[in-house]
């Protein structure tokens, strides 16, 4: 330990997880499918484009919402409400017993409002673009705080809520924001993570396609192939991952089950290019997260990689990883090979699927890795089949995004 030991009042722990992924609507189901090597990518019709590949979630929307809420709200709102409600239940927290003004909602998003705006433009196109047919729901649906705000209305939470716009680093960024607000004493419970409704906006697909970064393959389930020689781009997915975060002292006081400690994090900016990553900054980001956790790279047992299956992005992340973890014995895996890129939810979901390894030492693989690209060679890259290791005590979760935003979160087993 190179850093002072923190007081329990400023250590932040995860006590609940709510998620929906294309291959699981609970952590148990998600993990089971990750260990079994079961992806779930579908062909869906996309306005103006024909068929595209997408990771689609099938959680029960009406479990926590009325039909009118679903009709008037957004898909991101529904995902967030489902995940927040599941997370609270998982944490054994009932809002009835909480001071609702001391609960904060911090949700990472890659983008918001594209879906709703595209839908309305399409709608008025049927009326000769007469804007009197534009819905009055447009503004509440598209304000950037929408998914977090929908959670507070649905659950009656009166503490702060907002979204954290952080491109595809958003899942981590939401989690980091929640931890920071707990450390500042702004709230006692943080509902934090990320969500994505991006599979409903043609603009995201068309944009990736124009960039040459949209995956294609005969089989949708083999289209997302991080590190593989034949990878050719991203499969877009929807999803959500929200965590209940509490200060360790509070969690202990109420006898909560502690899933992991948010031990460290790093956030920085490439300051180089809007789209192309920068391995040097990624190295700095990971090192900062590890140092803040009071650890060295040799203490990190598992890295959940960001790799999205673009030719350049994967190779550059691997270059950064080799520099940080040379000779450390760290294992590496990737979740996008199963569910595609869940955008704002990616960081939160990818971390969640790996948390059970803190208990059982089993690391889920990255799949669709038939021919490793030499540029993506990593020692201990867990591919095709799960690996049982001696123990997993610390996980580093990478999430990077456009405009050069990098994030890394370190979670540890908590005694």
């Amino acid at each position, binding site marked *: 330990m190179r850093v002072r030991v923190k007081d329990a009042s400023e250590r932040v722990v995860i006590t609940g997880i709510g998620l929906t992924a294309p291959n699981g609507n609970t952590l148990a189901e998600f993990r089971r499918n990750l260990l079994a090597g079961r992806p779930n990518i579908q062909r869906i019709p996309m306005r103006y484009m024909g068929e595209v590949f997408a990771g689609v979630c099938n959680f029960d929307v009406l479990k926590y919402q*009325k*039909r*009118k809420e679903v*009709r*008037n709200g957004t898909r991101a709102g529904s995902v967030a409400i489902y995940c927040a409600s599941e997370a609270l239940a998982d944490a054994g927290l009932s809002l009835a017993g909480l001071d609702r003004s001391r609960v904060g909602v911090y949700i990472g998003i890659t983008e918001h409002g594209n879906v709703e705006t595209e839908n309305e433009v399409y709608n008025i196109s049927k*009326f000769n673009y007469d804007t*009197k*047919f534009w*819905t*009055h*729901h447009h503004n509440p649906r598209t304000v950037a705080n929408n998914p977090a705000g929908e959670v507070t209305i649905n659950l009656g939470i009166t503490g702060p809520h907002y979204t954290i716009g952080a491109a595809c680093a958003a899942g981590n960024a939401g989690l980091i924001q929640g931890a920071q607000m707990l450390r500042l004493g702004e709230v006692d419970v943080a509902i934090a993570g990320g969500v994505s409704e991006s599979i409903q906006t043609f603009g995201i697909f068309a944009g990736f396609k124009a960039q040459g970064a949209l995956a294609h393959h005969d089989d949708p389930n083999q289209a997302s192939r991080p590190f593989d020689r034949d990878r050719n781009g991203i499969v877009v997915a929807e999803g959500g991952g929200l965590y209940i975060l509490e200060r360790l002292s509070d969690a202990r006081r109420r006898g909560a089950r502690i899933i992991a400690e948010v031990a460290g994090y790093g956030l920085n900016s490439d300051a180089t290019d809007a789209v192309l990553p920068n391995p040097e900054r990624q190295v700095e980001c990971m090192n900062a997260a590890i140092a803040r956790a009071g650890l060295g790279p040799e203490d990190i047992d598992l890295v959940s990689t960001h790799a999205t299956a673009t030719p350049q992005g994967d190779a550059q992340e691997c270059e950064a990883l080799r520099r940080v973890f040379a000779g450390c014995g760290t294992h590496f895996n990737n979740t996008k090979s199963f569910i595609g890129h869940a955008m704002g939810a990616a960081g939160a979901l990818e971390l969640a699927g790996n948390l059970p390894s803190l208990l059982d030492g089993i690391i889920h693989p990255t799949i669709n890795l038939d021919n490793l690209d030499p540029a993506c060679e990593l020692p201990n890259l867990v591919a095709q089949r799960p690996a049982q290791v001696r123990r997993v005590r610390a996980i580093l979760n990478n999430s990077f995004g456009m405009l050069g935003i990098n994030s890394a979160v370190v979670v540890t087993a908590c005694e």
Partner: protein
Amino acid sequence: MTELTELTKYPEEKIMTAAAVTTHEDVKKIVLAIIAEVAPDEDLSNLKPEGRLRDQIELDSMDFLDIVMELRKKYGIEVPEADYGKLATLDSCAEYLLPKFLK
């Protein structure tokens, strides 16, 4: 009333064209079908035509805007803001809207 209940279950399939509307009952069916879309959680089977809609089901001002929008989209009918009060009950909807359908 049985017919109305059926209608609310499948609003899209059974919706009438504006030209087919000739009576107050036709207008009520149309308004009920729109309410079923806008307020999908509500049970509309026992709605009293003479009673205020907002007293009988959960319907806020945003929902009224949705009803006005659906009349505009589906039937080209405009309800100016000054006339919103005339949509208070099913009966008053029929009274107010029928001349607009017959126009």
